[in-house]
């Protein structure tokens, strides 16, 4: 077996870029380092995406079988890289205004993205865990990046402590599975479990391995912020600097969801009946909590935390379907979710009064009169997240529910529709506040062009998704087909 590194090229490139940028950041003059490194990081992520887009999509193993590059990982990696690049761009103005503009921000995002990229390419539990830790550690630091702000440091610490607990659960699950099968490789596990299913009725499958799987799901659910492993989200989302929250809410979740899909569909693909109920439970709990708890929120970042919990619940509906259609629906859902969420955070970053970033929902009052375009964009995102046709968010939900119905989980789809009705309440409340409430103070007119640009582009993409959904759907279809062989 040769030592072919071609499939790993995107990660290698990002790694080298990260190390070079570290040196660049240290050697550049202090005032400029943040800007230079941010620009180069975005460039690196863009080049990384291009490398992936141009690469061979057929499944290729590398690095002793711990790493696999296929259509599935390529799709998710491009999403991750785009999300990370946008998170870096969104952040520059914010960090500058808060006087915490340091080049390490971009680097940490870059390394975290590298970890996420390894997560979605993981082909063994070892690679899964290492990638997860590499992605998580920079996130802990990023959450506390505004280190003189008590809330920010608290967020970082909470995230770290609970993250460690979740890692522990994940590792415990991995060790149970290893104890049963004697291997960590997904491919070998798939064979072993397939054989086990073939010779025994499901009721007699090894208990230990399945309980291990439950623990693994719990560990991943923490990263996904799915109920009941979601408790950290509102506090961390609220405390972290807003661009970091955007990154946490998008790339981190997408990576975790991709990983969860791979783990459930590849090694445990034959055991759908065994894990389906657990996923369904988590999904229902997330949908309901996301819908109900968000109603009581006054802070828009906390609201986005619950909204994100709800969205993960919907995505898990597609996972629970356990079919190629389900995976396809999840991928489409994640892509749309990523775009909508980044745009929403762009809108949040547009709201400033006298140089201060405001994040209470009541602060949105009067936005429609003073900043009609920003209000319109936020309105689009809210309607889309509520799942109102013909916006992009509707199609994500539609596909997920269709997949559930096809898999015989009609009641789950019905529950999803009902909870999205409840959720529509708080999305529409934001629209109401923006358009019908009287403003107290004027908003600042000076804006950062990158934030405006990202908000505009994501809003247009959300609005006009219906006109040209083909490329995304086709790419997601190919990715799903690559995973479910």
């Amino acid at each position: 077996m040769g030592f072919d590194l071609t499939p790993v090229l995107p990660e290698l490139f990002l790694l080298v870029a990260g190390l070079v940028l570290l040196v660049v950041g240290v050697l550049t003059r202090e005032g400029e380092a943040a800007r230079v490194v941010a620009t180069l990081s975005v460039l690196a992520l863009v080049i990384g995406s291009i490398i992936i887009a141009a690469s061979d999509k057929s499944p290729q193993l590398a690095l002793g079988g711990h790493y696999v590059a296929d259509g599935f990982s390529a799709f998710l990696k491009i999403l991750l890289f785009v999300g990370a690049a946008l998170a870096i761009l969104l952040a520059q103005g914010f960090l500058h205004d808060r006087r915490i503009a340091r080049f390490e921000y971009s680097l940490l995002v870059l390394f975290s993205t590298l970890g996420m990229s390894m997560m979605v390419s993981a082909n063994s539990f070892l690679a899964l865990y290492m990638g997860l830790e590499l992605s998580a550690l920079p996130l802990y630091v990023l959450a506390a990046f505004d280190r003189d702000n008590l809330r920010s440091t608290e967020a970082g610490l909470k995230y770290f402590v609970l993250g460690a607990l979740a890692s522990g659960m994940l590792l415990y699950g991995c060790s149970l599975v290893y104890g049963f099968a004697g291997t960590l490789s997904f491919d070998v596990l798939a064979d072993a479990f397939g054989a086990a299913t073939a010779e025994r009725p499901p009721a007699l499958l090894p208990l230990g391995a399945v309980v291990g799987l439950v623990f693994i799901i719990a560990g991943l659910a923490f990263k996904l912020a799915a109920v009941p492993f979601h408790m950290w989200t509102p506090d961390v989302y609220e405390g972290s600097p807003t661009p970091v929250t955007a990154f946490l809410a998008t790339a981190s979740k997408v990576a975790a969801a991709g990983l969860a899909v791979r783990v459930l569909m590849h090694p445990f693909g034959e055991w759908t009946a065994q894990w389906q109920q657990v996923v369904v439970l988590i999904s229902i709990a997330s949908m309901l909590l996301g819908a109900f708890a968000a109603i009581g929120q006054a802070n828009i970042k906390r609201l986005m935390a619950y909204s994100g919990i709800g969205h993960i619940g919907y995505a898990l509906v597609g996972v629970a379907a356990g079919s190629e259609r389900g995976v396809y629906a999840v991928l489409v859902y994640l892509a749309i979710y990523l775009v909508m969420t980044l745009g929403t955070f762009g809108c949040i970053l547009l709201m400033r009064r006298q140089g201060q970033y405001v994040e209470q929902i009541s602060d949105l009052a009067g936005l429609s009169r003073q900043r009609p375009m920003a209000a319109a964009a936020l309105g689009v995102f809210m309607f889309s997240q509520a799942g109102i046709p013909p916006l992009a968010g509707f199609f994500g939900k539609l596909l997920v529910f269709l997949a559930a119905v096809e898999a015989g989980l009609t009641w789950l789809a019905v529950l999803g529709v009902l909870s999205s009705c409840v959720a529509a309440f708080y999305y529409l409340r934001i629209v109401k506040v923006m358009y019908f409430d009287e403003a107290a103070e004027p908003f600042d007119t000076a804006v950062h062009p990158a934030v405006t640009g990202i908000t505009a582009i994501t809003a247009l993409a959300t609005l006009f998704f219906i006109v040209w959904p083909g490329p995304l759907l086709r790419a997601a279809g190919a990715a799903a087909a690559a995973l479910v062989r």
Partner: protein
Amino acid sequence: MLHTVLVFAPLVGAIVAGLFGRAIGDRGAQIVTCGLMVLSALLATVGLFANVGEPARTVPLLEWIYVGSFQADWALRVDPLSSVMMFVVSFCSCWIHIYSVGYMAHDKSIPRFMAYLSLFTFFMLMLVTSDNLLQLFFGWEGVGLASYLLIGFWYTRPSACAAAIKAFIVNRVGDFGFVLGIAGVFLVFDTIQYDTIFRGAAGMANSTIVLFGTSWDTLDVLAFLLFIGAMGKSAQLGLHTWLPDAMEGPTPVSALIHAATMVTAGVFLVARMSPLFEYAPDALAFVTFIGASTALFAATIGLTQFDIKRVIAYSTCSQLGYMFFACGVGAYAAGIFHLYTHAFFKALLFLGAGSVIHAMSDEQDMRRMGGIWRLVPVTYAMMWIGTLALIGFPGFAGFFSKDAVLEAAWASHNAFAHYAFWLGVTAAVLTAFYSGRLIWMTFHGEPRADHETMHHVHESPPVMTIPLGVLAVGAIFAGWLGLGMLDAEGQFWAGSIFTGPDNHVMHDMHEVPFWVKAAPFVAMALGLGLSYVFYILAPDLPARVASAFRPLHSLFYNKWYFDELYDLVFVRGAKALGVAFWRGGDQGVIDRFGPDGVALSTLAAARRAVRIQTGYVYHYAFAMLIGVAALVTWYLVFVRG
């Protein structure tokens, strides 16, 4: 490529004028939209000559929706039928754009107007070039939207807003049928692509589906539902009430949307779906019946109206009836031919009326016009050309097409064919009468306007009269040029209009007795002569006739009381029902136990959900451990049982 540019040029114009209107100014918006429309019209002309007699082809644009077996792509279907439509739409729209530069010169929001016009044109082009029913529906609703925006263009006038809303709502009724039709087509054929539907239509003939416990002929049901949509859009009997009110919009809008293009979409739909309709004899009979009835009915109303634009609007309604019964009797080509000539002369009449209104300082009531023909000679001449074309004077465009429609009606074996023929001939008399009446009342006789207005009467600027001239040329020669459409072998259409194996109407219509051929001419002469007697020779005659036939006159004058009936039955009925449900059902029962109760418990649930969030890290960790314990327990108890 040519067709892509043709279709999307107006969209570009609309976006530029609509979004950047403030930046490029009024003049800029006019130049951009008109320039792009001229480009589009030129390409459409080229396309027409290139595509006549060619088989259909598809220009793919973008992938669109793939859900299960449901597939729809953005694509342009190019065949003789769509080419004729594209030509009509682009050509008329182009000249109406130019006319608007003059007509709307004093308006405050010129870029918005030009953007709406261009947007409308884009949607209309999408509609006629659609390659599947969903895209057709996209264009269908798009033109509806543009029509709504343009009728309500002067949104500060309550009457304009009311008219816009009325147009929108009445069209919804038709769209309901249309959407059901599309859904039905998908149900039956498992596709909404034209090609596949058309191939499968013959196989579906005589099959039945069960609805409400009775079995129906499948294709009859589908064709009927689609025709409901066409009735709404094309203002046919029953769903026609919005069209006269739509005259609240600026006159170029009436010319473009409510005469030349959008309202003919229903006729286009029937012709486009001819493979379906050909196997649905009952639906065709219904089409014929509705078309013929509308032709006469609208003409009777036209006799009595005084608003110059409303007269022309009812005339449009009536002419659309002709087109429909032409399609209904199987002569789709004659219907489209009439559509094509009608676009020229009706746009000409509307623009001419606009020119008159412009000259009379925004006066629309014919009772306060008269005696101005010397003052506006160009407009006068143009109105005569339009009128002669409309009433089917030999040599003018309408002569060819109306004769063809009536001959086809005589020659057909449709159950309602002769009904259609006789109603059509009667309507022709009435058409000639009210058209003559319009000319006499507007231009001849004693001036009835006040001195101030008469003093200001002036000919319109060239930017308005030149489009009139161009359309007048069309109104004269379009008939000659388009005669090929009536070719009995159907070579012109190259299969884009389908006629069934038993349908020989295009042949038979050339072999009708002489008196059938002569009837439209006699009818026209009779009507025109009568109007001359009534309004020039004996001006007191109309009043005497009106009082002699008081009930009939008031029936016609009040538009057969359709608005009143609808108001009584639907508007008030729905409102009463709504109030009953609101007071009794909603507030009394549902709100008390439903939303208010649910909302309260939702809020309570929300508060509880928030209270879990204590902020202590060990509570969170604890929750995670409880969660994992619960999941393991659930698994052990329920999955492994």
